């Protein structure tokens, strides 16, 4: 078990509304990432599920039981904090066993549970150390161990990897993914890092200013963003947006005139445009690099900046549509100032209306 169902949840601090009428269902055993920029309300939402914040309006059901008024320890949730929040005066063993000791579990049970969890997280050599004697990654594992020992229905992670360096972060990401495969417990994971969300989660909920902007699988969000906010937030480097003039509609596609005079036919996702201008969204890897002035080219431009990342090359090309980012192959021979032609892939391009929603 471990379903979470938030129904019409609103959270206010005084007159400031941080979550507005939000409803969300989280399936049993899923790994859901709550993704959004700072201040979008994702941590608040997680803390409301944990019971650390009161819900102003609405209800929170866990396993079908209304837990809105239930104290945090009785909800069957366990949380891993950004700062780890380990008890600094206790050893790793005492930290992990703390909840059991509060519940007056026998010493034998405590020892068994600590052994089980510490083996799972490779903490068995560190049990007598204090948090101050551990590295960042080890502390993170203790925090996870402390959550794990409670055998919760739902794991809540509040940006757990943001205090770690890049190498350790990717290592811990793999460990978390493995942990989820092993325990198969529902996990809700708050992050502002879209890479973490994309790699770990089977469902991503993108939040913007306290409302759900879009929810779906990582690839759904990547390939079919519902609006400009999601399109720009998911994917690195971010999607290019090109202001274009709307032309005629042929079946399911609009012909648009791009800055510089070239035109392209881009399929809609079933919507109809209003007004005569749209934003064309195209990801850096969906812009093809060619010779300047070649037939079929969408834009001609000059290379402004070259970033060689080894496995790919990022080009910042100055075009009539502004600076566009292009992702090309890793061993590309190109220099700053070179004239290039860019062709957008119409089948991988998106049309956004004036309201920012996809057409």
């Amino acid at each position, binding site marked *: 078990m471990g379903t979470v169902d938030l129904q019409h949840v609103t959270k206010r601090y005084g007159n400031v509304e941080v979550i507005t009428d939000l409803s969300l269902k989280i399936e049993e055993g899923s790994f859901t990432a709550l993704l959004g920029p700072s201040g979008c309300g994702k941590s608040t939402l997680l803390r409301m599920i944990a019971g650390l914040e009161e819900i102003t309006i609405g209800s929170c059901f866990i396993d079908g039981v209304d837990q809105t008024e239930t104290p*945090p*320890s009785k909800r069957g949730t366990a949380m891993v*904090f950004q700062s780890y*929040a380990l*008890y600094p*005066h206790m050893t790793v063993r005492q930290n992990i066993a703390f909840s059991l000791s*509060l519940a007056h579990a026998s010493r034998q049970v405590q020892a068994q549970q600590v052994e089980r969890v510490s083996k799972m997280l490779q903490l068995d050599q560190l049990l007598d150390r204090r948090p101050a004697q551990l590295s960042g990654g080890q502390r993170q594992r203790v925090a996870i161990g402390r959550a794990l020992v409670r055998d919760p229905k739902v794991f809540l992670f509040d940006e757990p990897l943001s205090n770690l360096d890049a190498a350790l972060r990717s290592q811990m990401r793999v460990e978390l993914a493995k942990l989820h495969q092993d325990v198969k417990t529902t996990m809700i994971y708050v992050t502002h890092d879209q890479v973490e969300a994309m790699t770990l989660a089977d469902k991503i909920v993108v939040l913007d200013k306290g409302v759900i902007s879009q929810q779906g699988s990582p690839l759904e969000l990547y390939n079919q963003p519902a609006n400009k906010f999601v399109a720009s937030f998911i994917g690195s480097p971010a999607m290019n947006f090109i202001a274009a003039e709307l032309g005629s509609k042929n079946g399911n596609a609009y012909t648009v005139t791009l800055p510089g005079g070239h035109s392209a036919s881009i399929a809609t996702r079933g919507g109809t445009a209003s007004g005569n201008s749209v934003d064309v969204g195209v990801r850096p890897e969906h812009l093809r690099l060619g010779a300047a002035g070649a037939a079929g080219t969408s834009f001609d431009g000059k290379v402004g900046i070259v970033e060689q990342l080894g496995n790919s090359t990022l080009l910042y090309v100055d075009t009539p549509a502004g600076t566009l980012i292009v992702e090309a192959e890793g061993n590309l021979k190109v220099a700053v100032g070179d004239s290039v032609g860019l062709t957008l892939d119409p089948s991988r391009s998106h049309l956004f209306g004036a309201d920012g929603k996809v057409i």
Partner: protein
Amino acid sequence: MAVSDASGATTGVARKSSRYNWSEVIVAALFVLPFIVVYGVIFVWPTIQMVWLSLHNAPLIGPGKWVGFDNYVKLFKDRLFSVAFWNTAYFVLLTVVPSTILGLLIALGINRLKGWAQSAILACFFIPHILPVSVVFRIWGWMFDSQFGILQYPIEAITGDHLPVFRTLPLFMPTVAWITIWWGVGFNILLFIAGLRNISPEIYEASELDGATRWQQFSRITWPLIWPVTVLVLTIQLILQFKIFDQVYLFGNGGRVDATMTLVQMIFRNAFQKNMGGYGATVAVVLFAIIVIFSVLQYQLLRARGGEK
């Protein structure tokens, strides 16, 4: 250090000599000198003088006659010293632990408040600490005044009559101790609040999720984490209260002064009122030794116990 070649060794030596060149040593000495001079003049030298004076039968100012440890022998036979010692010890007992506990309890309460209410209440508790002792004496003198003191109403309700608290020997020390706690608890509160603010709120949230009750949060988290501050407060209070003088002197004035005498009062009386500098210095040396021994012992013992937890 292994040096591979001669030039390397030369470089090493050159570096070493440049690191300790004389101009830097002189500059360093100039920076340190003011402290050494001030510390020497106002602490080390007077302390040596005090010990020296205690070995003489001498007035406060001027030469005296060497008597060796006679003053100490005389002191330990002096009935007034025994009274002063036990009065001081009793006062320390009545103030140090209660003012620490009270400070912690009030700090815990204030720490739960937020915003302006927290600042306002903290200020209320801290204001007495900035009052001079004469004002404290006046305030509580009036409050306990046996004729018109406001506290005579509850006293009368309990005892059936007005009571001259500062002239009733069994009540004298507890009352002065209470006034001292009221006067100084603000400082303890401040130290405890600083300590409590060092404990991350997320630790309490984590313990809430772990199922800790409010009492368990205090006993298993706050108390062990605030222990170093508690040791500090206890030690500061111990040193401070061993040196009790002003309040007892002011409130006891006109009463049975000998019965309420404390150690610093005894120093004052011998050195400044009877001009027995040597004997006064002897009491001072003994008090100095008591404070050093007790405070160092207490600090080390409590700190060690905290470390074992």
